[in-house]
């Protein structure tokens, strides 16, 4: 997979993940172009379209479009499946996810995506494992947050606290 884009029906980008190094300018151009073409398609049309030398696989969930670019030889159905799995993950994590969840917790959405895909390849196919990893990382974050607040209250003794919690 080359990249993944999430955008709303209004054409606002909600999430982007690039698995190929491109310059910002290029990215912006691609995004604009794709958002336009995808939005112009009617709901009854198929989820695939050819664009440059890539294939675009997209799917609409409520007001959000999930859009992936894959190479020529890649399988389209599995890409659709990946999109669906990602949506499922988001849904599980946020509890019936909506667009606002992704806007306000975009970093979380990214983290989930990172646990699920790595370098454009599926990394973990088990929903449970992905969520477990995220939860644990979150837990760790909470701990260090707590740790951090301890530090701000009293600068003394923070070193020892750190060791305690880690």
């Amino acid at each position, binding site marked *: 997979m080359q990249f993944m884009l999430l955008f709303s029906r209004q054409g606002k*980008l*909600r*999430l*982007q*993940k*690039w*698995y190929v*190094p*491109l*310059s*910002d300018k290029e990215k*912006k151009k691609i*995004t604009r172009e794709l958002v336009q073409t995808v939005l112009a*398609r*009617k709901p*009854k*049309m*198929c*989820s*695939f*379209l*050819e664009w440059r030398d890539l294939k675009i696989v997209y799917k609409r969930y409520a007001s959000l479009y999930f859009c992936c670019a894959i190479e020529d*030889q890649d*399988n*389209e*159905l*599995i890409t*659709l*499946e990946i999109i669906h799995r990602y949506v499922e993950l988001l849904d599980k994590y946020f509890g019936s996810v909506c667009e606002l969840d992704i806007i306000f917790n*975009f*970093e979380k959405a*990214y*983290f989930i995506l*990172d*646990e699920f895909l*790595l*370098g454009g*390849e*599926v*990394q*973990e*196919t*088990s929903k449970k*494992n992905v969520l477990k*990893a995220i939860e*644990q*990382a979150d837990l*760790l*974050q909470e701990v*260090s*947050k707590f*740790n*951090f607040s301890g530090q701000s209250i009293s600068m003394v003794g923070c070193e020892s606290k750190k060791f305690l919690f*880690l």
Partner: protein
Amino acid sequence: QDNIAVKANAVCKLTYLQMLGYDISWAAFNIIEVMSASKFTFKRIGYLAASQCFHEGTDVIMLTTNQIRKDLSSPNQYDTGVALTGLSCFVTPDLARDLANDIMTLMSHTKPYIRKKAVLIMYKVFLKYPESLRPAFPRLKEKLEDPDPGVQSAAVNVICELARRNPKNYLSLAPLFFKLMTSSTNNWVLIKIIKLFGALTPLEPRLGKKLIEPLTNLIHRFLISLSSGMPNHSASIQLCVQKLRILIEDSDQNLKYLGLLAMSKILKTHPKSVQSHKDLILQCLDDKDESIRLRALDLLYGMVSKKNLMEIVKKLMIHVDKAEGTTYRDELLTKIIDICSQSNYQYITNFEWYISILVELTRLEGTRHGHLIAAQMLDVAIRVKAIRKFAVSQMAMLLDNAHLIASNTQRNGICEVLYAAAWICGEFSEHLEEANQTLEAMLRPKVTTLPGHIQAVYVQNMVKLYASILQQKEQSGEKEAAQEITQLMIERLPQFVQSADLEVQERASCILQLIKYIQKLQIKEVPVAEEVIALFAGELNPVAPKAQKKVPVPEGLDLDAWINEPPSDSESEDEKPKTIFHDEEQRHSRHRQPEIDEEELARRREARKQEQANNPFYIKSSPSPQKRYQDTPGVEHIPVVQIDLSVPLKVPGMPMSDQYVKLEEERRHKQKLEKDKKKKKQKKEKRGKHHRHNSLHTESEEDIAPAHHVDIITEEMPENALPSDEDDKDPNDPYKALDIDLDKPLADSEKLPVQRHRNVETLKSPDSEAPLVEKKSKKPKKKEKKHKEKERDKGKKKEKEKKVIEEEEEKKVILQDLHYKSSKHKKKKHKKEKEEKSKDKKKSKKKSHHSEEETTESVQNGTLDDEPLPPMSSYRLLAENPYVKMTYDIQGNLQNDSQVTVSVIFENKSTSFLKSMELNVLDSLNTKMLRPEGSSVHDGIPVPFQLPPGISNEAQFVFTLQSIVMAQKLKGTLSFIVKNDEGSTHEKLDFKLHFSCASYLITTPCYSDAFAKLLESGDLHMSSIKVDGISISFQHLLAKICFHHHFSVVERVDSCASMYSRSIQGHHVCLLVKKGENSVSIDGKCNDSTLLSNLLDEMKETLSKC
């Protein structure tokens, strides 16, 4: 800001802004700061931001190397994980090189979470740093059998992606994947594996057969992958096509799309089976969805034949008219042209029809492909002589209607067509009927609004036209008319002289002068036409687009060399006056230029043209208005066209392509009737049953005779062109670099650059103990960092050197390298083996380190060996005398079940020069040396190199054998000439080549359950041995068996291990090795009892040496 929390928050917000399209590259350094925060919360955000906005051009990325390395070796698995995730997005070649080793270490991390990520990221690393593939591959292969399904699927993913690009290097993994496929329950993995097989089957047809059975079970889900997977089975293809038809007829658009896609894949291999579904595909052309229409178009491309081309194109033309989106229309247009021009106009029977199609296409508005149409027009007009007359008349019409086409020039590219039209009219002006009218059309003031390059062509071709008109008039004696036309030119040309385009201006002013001169002559009543027309005399040949590239560079010509030494940058003050003088002189000559009269100009141009014609290097791919090859001898050889005028060349009225279609049908009908008549006659003459059989074929394509017997002139190629198939390969393809043979053992030069004391020292040091000491010594700590860096640089340089030379020729490895190798042999310290052995060590070592949560730097490199394994070399001594020493190694050939390759290292021990070495072996009934064709069994094979004193090199010889169950010995002789100061002498060295049974084995990995099945199957013979007095550790023992006898460990429990190997002829060999107090017992099972007992005997011998 000082506060890291605030900073992290800011970076987080920046990331969001970046998504909205703002440039945040200025914050790159702050992002790195946040990345290096010790708290996971911030680190996570830092890496997220980095992965979103870093790319290869980010300059601060170099700063991250150490930070990432630190995070990779962090005791916290989530730190490591987040670093890996981030790295996967912004890995650069530099990062890949520096971190490859760290990531490789992580591939054997205790946590599957990390292992999985490390395996996946390796793919990115391979892409950026291909050298890392070979060293990392064995471990990657190991991961295919990882207990964790996540890691396993990650490994499958990576290998699948790798194999897709260069499948042939991964054939040896097929059995492993086959097993995975039959045992795996994970659909995601299955799809990947099937995709992998899709890449492999074209190379190994046998695989296809094996695959059918499991695949038919899965057929619905995997139709798509399947269709690309099995190109060789007509039965299954038929099945596929049937199923696909159902898919395409489905109402679900997605399925329809996929069906068409799969169909086009089948089309590539089995065009026949798809052609029957033409109706369906034409239906799809009417679909609302553009994606589906495009797919259907692709399919059409492969379905045309001589018979249905016109019909299909007609349908497409209707679609062109209906199509609403420009992109789709453009696509249609290119497809029409593609379809028609494919394989050298193979399917076109009537070129007039084609030209009229092209002309019709020019009426399209707003297409971008004007140049494409133009190119086609030019191509057809030049290469199909018979059509020129017709083409010219059509083009003249186009020029006449130029205002229609050019009306909205600025936006569309269709005016490119005028370029072709003008050129064709000019070039073949002799076919023009109303040249006057055309000339006038070209001189219209409107023309000046066209783009520059078209105007330039106009100007040039006006003169051609003018010349032919002039000739015409002079011949018929109409002097008035001739002068009139000259006057017209003189009146109208100035509008071009004022053009802003330099090319147009230059040509126009030049021609204007020329014509003024002609006018003068005309007034004097001198006939000029002949001379004017001589300007453009000569035939024009199409030149193949790659012709220039194929002209070999003459020997001794170095295109990169300076012809004159470049002037030095530091020109001294003294030289200045000189240059000023030069300037003045040039100015003088410039002043003089206008004085040269027109005749002189014409003469010069003529001379230049002559020069160009005679210069073989003056070739342009695009036909240009200037004529070349005036007296090239090739012209006469161009086949002259014979026209079978069964079709009237002119169709009354506006020639619409439809009329041609009708005409064509009529013609065909007529032809058919004629043929039938003939057939009947034949039948009457010979009443044989078998003749009726013939008549059945009347409808077949071959019977449709083309309307014109058109000889399509083949494109010209330079005589001494080099045939090369590699023209189309893109040297910049990133995946090319990964085309690496993975079955070869690792060479010393290919180790990953590890941060440690490099073998630079070991290379140089004559003392064999030094490298060991180096290795044992603990990694230098931070204080020594600078020193370390230096070392690494050295290492890098070394690496680069080696890379360059290796590219030249794999087999003849650099002398230095070889020298190094051979010196190693002497000391019995083959590094490669050592590395392999030490891997196991490393793994266990690392695990313990991690569990201790010891974050010393030494962990990440993990190169220390507490207990170095005794070095082993697979090379055995073959023969030795005071001049030369030969060591050899025998390897089974995976691709051929009756061949082994013997690698012999020749080392020159003397101080003389060894040359004309020839190796000969007395063949036995069973074993024969593979000699080049045409040489007798008594001929020796020359060794392809000479040996200077003290140098060694390796040569490979292939032997064929019939039975492999017994060890064999072959007698042989090496003859060579020793040359030194005193002269040269002929020397000989006899040797005995020992083919042990182990050399027929190929190390093959095996799963424990497959192994168990094998043992249970009961068709293996059993035998066992016991060796006493073994003192070495079990680990070493296994290593020895693996190394010398090509086994792989299947499972190991305490002091008991099962091992597996396979012979080149497919015998399975299973071993159970048990270690007692100081004895070892080995139980073996094998398909062939003789082979087994021989193998065990050999093993006994090896072990008793311990």
